[in-house]
């Protein structure tokens, strides 16, 4: 009987063991799809923010988020095995964003310089800084200050810049930032301190020039 089924070439599809295997496969497939959908619903915006922190462009960040989940799709069967899904996802998003930033670096730089020329007025911002009555919160909220900060952050060394940018994603703790970057947590703190010190120096230097 078994031999006949083998000769028909449909033994594996017709035997009860094969049917149960097929059912198991469908069940695991459905479970993996459901887990992936849940992952997307929970973390899509988080992934977007990580990508945006690096790319500084909404369209590019969304494309990076799409790419990130496409990479996840390839390993969706193994999703239940992953323990720290958020950190794991953050790392994938960070890699996607870095890959994408290398591709569009020149275009982003030209966009940044264009936006600076249009909306950034460092002299006005720095003049406001000289005013003791100026409110730092209001200044920080201004488009000019945002553009100025973008420009100053872009001048930082890459390791400091990336650490600073990732750490501005509010959902990530310093430990998770360390896990994403693959460095010790102490190194993250050191880099953040150095980045902040450099930013302050550059702002002071700009302020001194205008004074």
């Amino acid at each position, binding site marked *: 009987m078994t031999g006949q089924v083998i000769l028909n070439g449909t033994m594996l599809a017709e035997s009860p063991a094969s049917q149960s295997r097929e059912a198991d496969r469908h069940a695991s497939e459905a479970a993996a799809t459901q887990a992936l959908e849940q992952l997307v619903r929970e973390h899509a915006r988080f992934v977007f923010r990580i990508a945006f922190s690096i790319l500084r462009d909404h369209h590019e960040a969304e494309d990076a988020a799409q790419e990130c989940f496409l990479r996840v799709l390839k390993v969706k*069967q193994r999703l239940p095995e992953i323990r720290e899904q958020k950190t794991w996802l953050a790392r994938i998003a960070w890699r996607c964003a870095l890959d994408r930033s290398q591709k569009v670096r020149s275009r982003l730089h030209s966009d940044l310089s264009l936006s600076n020329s249009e909306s950034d007025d460092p002299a006005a911002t720095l003049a406001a800084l000289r005013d003791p009555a100026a409110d730092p919160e209001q200044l920080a909220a201004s488009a000019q200050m945002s553009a100025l900060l973008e420009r100053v952050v872009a001048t930082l060394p890459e390791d400091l810049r990336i650490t600073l940018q990732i750490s501005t994603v509010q959902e990530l703790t310093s430990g998770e930032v360390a896990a994403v970057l693959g460095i010790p947590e102490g190194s993250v703190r050191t880099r953040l301190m150095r980045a902040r010190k450099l930013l302050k120096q550059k702002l002071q230097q700009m302020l001194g020039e205008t004074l």
Partner: protein
Amino acid sequence: MNHKPESNRDQIDQLLDASLTRYNSTAEPRGGLEDRILANLRSHPVAEASGWFSWHWFNRNWITASAVAIATVMLIAVLLMPRTQRQNPSPIIATNKNAEPTPIHQTTPDTGASQRRVSTKHHAPSAKSLPSQHITVAAAVPHLEVFPSPTPLSAQERMLLSYVRRTPREVMVAVSEEQQLHEQEWMQGMQSMQPQQRSEQKSENLK
């Protein structure tokens, strides 16, 4: 004296804190990001689960897979077989009934097949070093009507051919009859001898 720079420094600190807090505040995607991502994921086939070659596919189509594997092995074997083994090496001369039997290299049209054959025979070790243009030209020539391809006559064959041409037919018939008669006499003589004498006679003939 230092009051103003210190206040500036404090202000810069505060400004930096506030600015870095707001640094990623504009990172809000357009609405429906999750739906767009899910739609994109659904439109992409899953390589791991439904790839054309998977263990599941192999289980279901093992006969097809075996046939494909055997065919692939045979094809590779044929391709790897030396070229000389694939060709029939017997040099048979073309038998064109309408034409006069003349040496092949004079009457047969100069075909690429014959050239290729001669070339393979004499220059086989350097076949790889031939220019690609030569190979292309040879392959473009159509096949001969006669198979296997005719080869040039040997020196003995050419001598026989010229003898046949020169000699009148009556003379050849007479010579042939005389030769047959001589052979018959010789056979009768051999049959009448004892086996030992026969071997001696053979050895004498050989000498």
